[in-house]
């Protein structure tokens, strides 16, 4: 189906901890339609982040296939995955993970360094991304000069600057107060509804999950739909 952006079939992920085999995901199937906004909830160690890593091409399944946007990630080499990530997926982390030595603008510009755009074009696109997240006036500020919410906005701008179809958010509001968290979640909603981004968000926060179109519950390596409250 062309409406499906990502499809996971029979995905298992087993880690070795010493001699012990730990199965984090067990024969998991999942389809993510284009333009969806999914919240994945579940206890710590349930496999939420592993699922996100597989969708983002940061990890490979032990068994099964991961297909995102027509690309079969499970069979790609590390360098192919690097290249794929640079254009197809944006990552948003709990602790923002901005480079402290670069200004907001230069942090947002980072993914564009991997493109053929010249310096002027890169700055133009990074400025537009900052404008979308409402931080055009903070372009020359360093991360240490920004609040947590502003840092996360910069991280979101960095995630969308190369116009990927999929945004993967790992606890994007986990380090923020309620009010700021709501601002960030509203911004994600705007990106989903107005800019057509497909978003998969891992969260522990039930209120955050309410901003998503649907929620999935991850436990012991399997997924199930969560009933709306």
């Amino acid at each position, binding site marked *: 189906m062309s409406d499906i952006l990502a499809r996971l079939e029979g995905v298992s992920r087993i880690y070795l901890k010493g001699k012990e085999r730990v199965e984090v995901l067990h024969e998991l199937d999942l389809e993510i339609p284009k333009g969806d906004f999914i919240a994945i909830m579940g206890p710590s160690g349930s496999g939420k982040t592993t699922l996100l890593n597989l969708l983002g091409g940061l990890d490979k399944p032990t068994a099964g296939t991961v297909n995102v946007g027509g690309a079969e990630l499970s069979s790609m080499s*590390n360098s192919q995955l690097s290249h794929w990530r640079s254009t197809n997926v944006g990552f948003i982390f709990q602790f923002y993970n901005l480079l402290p030595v670069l200004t907001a603008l*230069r942090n947002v510009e980072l993914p564009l360094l991997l493109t053929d755009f010249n310096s002027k074009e890169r700055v133009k696109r990074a400025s537009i991304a900052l404008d979308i997240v409402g931080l055009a006036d903070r372009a020359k500020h360093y991360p240490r000069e920004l609040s947590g919410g502003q840092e996360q906005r910069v991280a979101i701008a960095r995630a969308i600057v190369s116009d990927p179809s999929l945004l993967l958010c790992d606890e994007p509001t986990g380090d923020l107060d309620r009010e700021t968290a709501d601002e960030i979640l509203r911004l994600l909603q705007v990106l989903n509804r107005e800019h057509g981004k497909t978003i998969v968000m891992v969260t522990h926060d039930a209120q955050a999950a309410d901003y998503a179109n649907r929620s999935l519950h991850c436990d012991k390596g399997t997924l199930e739909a969560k009933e709306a409250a």
Partner: protein
Amino acid sequence: MKYFRLIWKNVWRKKIRTSLTVLSVFVAFLLFALLSAIGFAFRGGVDVADAERLVVIDKISLINPIPMSYLNRIAATEGVESVTHSTWFGGYYQDPRNQFPQFPVDPQSYYDMYPEVSMPPEQLEAFKRNRTGAVVGRELAETYGWKIGDQIPIQATIWTKADGGRTWEFQLEGIFSTDDPRGSTALMLFQYDYFEEARAFGKGTVGWYILRVAKGADPIRVANAIDLQFANSPNETKTSTEAAFAQSFTKQFGNIALIVMLILGAVFFTLLLVSGNTMSQSVRERIAELAVLKTLGFGDGAVLGIVLSESILIMLMGGLLGLGLGWLIIQGLAQQMGAFLPGVFLSPKAIAGGVATMIGAGTLAGIFPALKAMRLSIIDALARA
């Protein structure tokens, strides 16, 4: 180049640490420049030696004189185009600290032997005409402020005069120069005839012969033919190229090249440890940032290149500053010590070697941290962050 801003900002993330590392690189390359230049001076004529010039010395030792009577026999040897001679005088001007090389020579044949040396023809003629005349290199004339016509008394340390005196008076008849920046002009030449007539001992001898091999002749065969002529005589000879002669002359001071190499080896080994430690710390501190770069799509090669470039950039900053200041100091040293230690010169070869060393040392210091960054597991690094 598009990564330069990122590399530059990373290099200066810990300003004090980077400044100290750059400073240590700076000192190492300053030392490199100074020792290279001094080593060059001690190598003397080795680098400016002419392959078609041979030098004939006593087989036992350079300090043993050889008979003047050998001149015609050497000149008559097949393959020899021209011959001249020279002798170490070893005097000083006014004060024992003012030492520089002086040689009694035959003006015309000596001048003909060294086409790279130039002097106005009228000065050469005046030198030839005046039995107590002398010529000096421009470097020496500038050091002591000598002008044509000056009387220059030289105190002998070896060659006393027949009348028991040690002071040799010369009139300055000419000042010569050379186009080759590596060639020294901190020396004095005077008439052998005057020397021969006035000296108290050693008459009928010279220090060494210099000869030019005829075009097409094999220098090795010519050298063997000369040495064969004087075999089993009281003064057997050893004929070698000018470069080998210059090297044997330098070895009288000890193996300067080895000493310089050992000092620099120790300095650069320490430098590698210092800068390697800086790079290791730098990578260790930003494991999460490197993982983020890889998450964004920076490949293994890009991450390796970024970290290696940082290491090389630190070396280049300190190294170029060190070489630059070294070059300035050497310009001053060459003027101050020109007479005492002629030929102090930072050669283009040494500069190129220095830059290559910076890149090599930067690569060595950065390669292990860079490999660590390249092999970083994104998931592990992000989980630890």
